């Protein structure tokens, strides 16, 4: 197997909270996050809101500082790069955000928005060449080249997301991070955007980190799925295995809670997750999930290591071998 494009190792992010600078408490937003992302592959990242999904994306891109760990891009640690080197490297790593309109500058035309990455990364390019590349990209994402003269507010949500994707694709990145990129779209538009991303990936061979709270979409696009809870990875498995045989009690509860379309198919028997995750700053010691876990025991007061359950399947649970077998939900 090829060396992964991106290797994240023991990544740690800390935030400070509190109104007074002197009394500020630091808390851990990401702890010991490690995973690999091979080229031309999609890795999905799921978890509840506030669990650190977006923090991970931002820490990888160094949009926020890391407190420890390494982010290896083709073996080179992004966290120790000089500012100038980082800026050059960023053309390879692009991101698409959830709110398509908010992430586009309202005062720039779509043509300028798409042209900007070229001005930065391919400064030698002439204006005519830039316009040609912009027009090509607009057509590629399903818009019309003449739309380059328009402003973001003139477009629908789905179209804005196509523009956001086009902008990210302009410097021909090798990694595209999609942070809830389809979450605010209507279902009929959502599918169009997911398919567009798959097509772009097949054409360019780029890797994707696909972040979403929507398990059904993640299941559709990912080869490997990471499950995060309160800033820790609790499970990582190949897609089919994760959804057919989830191990961690949190993963099981998450999958069990997804609404099913067939009336009456909603899993009453599934492990119903009680309550909501505590805020990060008051995360339990030891296993962070133990305050909501039906299987928690005395041993869970110690932090569980991420251990290998099967090929490519890692899970952080002390009670792994005492959990009841997972019963597939009624079809």
């Amino acid at each position, binding site marked *: 197997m090829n060396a992964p494009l991106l290797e994240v190792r023991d990544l740690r992010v800390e935030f400070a909270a509190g109104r007074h600078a002197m009394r500020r408490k630091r808390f851990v937003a990401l702890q010991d996050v490690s995973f690999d992302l091979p080229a031309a592959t999609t890795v999905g990242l799921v978890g509840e809101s506030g669990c650190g999904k977006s923090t991970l994306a931002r820490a990888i891109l160094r949009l926020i500082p890391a407190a420890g760990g390494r982010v290896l891009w083709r073996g080179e640690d992004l966290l120790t790069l000089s500012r100038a080197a980082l800026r050059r490297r960023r053309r390879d790593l692009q991101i698409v955000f959830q709110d398509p309109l908010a992430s586009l500058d309202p005062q720039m035309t779509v043509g300028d928005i798409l042209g900007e990455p070229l001005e930065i990364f391919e400064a030698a390019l002439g204006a005519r060449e830039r316009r040609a590349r912009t027009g090509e990209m607009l057509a590629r994402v399903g818009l019309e080249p003449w739309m380059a003269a328009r402003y973001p507010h003139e477009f629908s*949500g789905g179209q804005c997301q196509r523009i956001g994707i086009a902008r990210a694709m302009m410097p021909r990145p090798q990694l595209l991070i999609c942070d809830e990129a389809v979450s605010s779209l209507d*279902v*009929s538009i959502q*599918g*169009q955007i997911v*398919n567009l991303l798959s097509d772009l990936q097949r054409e360019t061979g780029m890797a994707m980190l696909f972040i979403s709270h929507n398990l059904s979409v993640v299941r559709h696009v990912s080869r490997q799925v990471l499950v995060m809870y309160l800033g820790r990875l609790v499970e990582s498995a190949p897609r089919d295995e994760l959804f057919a045989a989830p191990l961690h009690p949190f993963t099981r509860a998450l999958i069990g809670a997804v609404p099913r379309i067939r*009336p009456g198919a909603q899993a009453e028997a599934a492990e*119903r997750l009680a309550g*909501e995750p505590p805020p990060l700053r008051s995360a339990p010691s030891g296993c962070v999930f133990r305050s909501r876990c039906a299987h928690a025991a005395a041993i869970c007061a110690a932090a569980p290591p991420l251990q290998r359950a099967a090929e490519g399947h890692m899970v952080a649970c002390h009670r792994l071998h005492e959990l009841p077998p997972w019963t597939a939900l009624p079809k």
Partner: protein
Amino acid sequence: MSAILAIDGLSVEFRRAGAAIGALRQVGLKVAAGECVGIVGESGSGKTQLGMAVMGLLPANAAASGSIRFAGREILAAPRALLQSLRGAKLAMIFQDPQSSLTPHLRIGVQLAEVLVFHRKMPRRRAQDAALAMLRRVGIDDAARRMRQYPHELSGGMRQRVLIGMSLLCGPDLLIADEPTTALDVAVQAQVIGLLQDMRREFHTAIVLISHDLAVVAGLAERIYVMYAGRIVETARAADLYRGPRHPYTAALLRCAPRIDAALAPRLDTLPGQPPNLALPIEGCAFAPRCWRATERCTRERPLLLPADATAQAACHHPLCA
């Protein structure tokens, strides 16, 4: 069963910058006492405006016509005093964003008790006790402490529980729930749907559940109305609708959303194009430009919502599974 809510020929038009936007077009709908009815549609389909029209909360630039009868009484364009006495007492609504539905500077307990003080003229002390009991009933832990807290101190799921409790304080006959779980995580979403289910059993409140997500509605509603471009395009019993949708739009909605329990395909099914601009005139069927079954007739002649069998109606010239 008598209808607690009967809407007939309801149209709502917004005037903005000289243009008239037809948000609702000849909508008809019935909800029986104690029944749960789902309204499904994408953004802009008019489902929220339908809820707002029933509550008498349409903005000033909206012109409504038609009829909305609540418990046999016409409430469209009813005097403000009548609406005010109904709202929060007999007729309640909860919204997607529970944060903006609560007053930020008042304690939870005060806000809940106020409902009973206003509508039931209950002494404040007794109202507080009733509010506390309701918080416990909707599954809020440590309810006495929560009563003294402000909305921002509660999580999103807890705020939605508070609002559900608040809406049920006066034992309303009808609860309109507009995307009540959309802003919540999937586990909390399941909790809130379960709570609505329990509350409906306990209080015999009829529920109109508005959502863009057919799967969310599937967990609760007995009958479903599907809306597109301001019109109801199909209505049927939930089980029938999921098993055999008649309108191509309903079929597309069912097919397009990736399902956690469906077989995986290399590509997602999609619906090309986007909903029509409601400020422009729509000729024929509004869905025709995106419909794979559309013929020349569909672009010319608007299909009427006609009975397909004893319990279902569809507005389509070429319905599926006839």
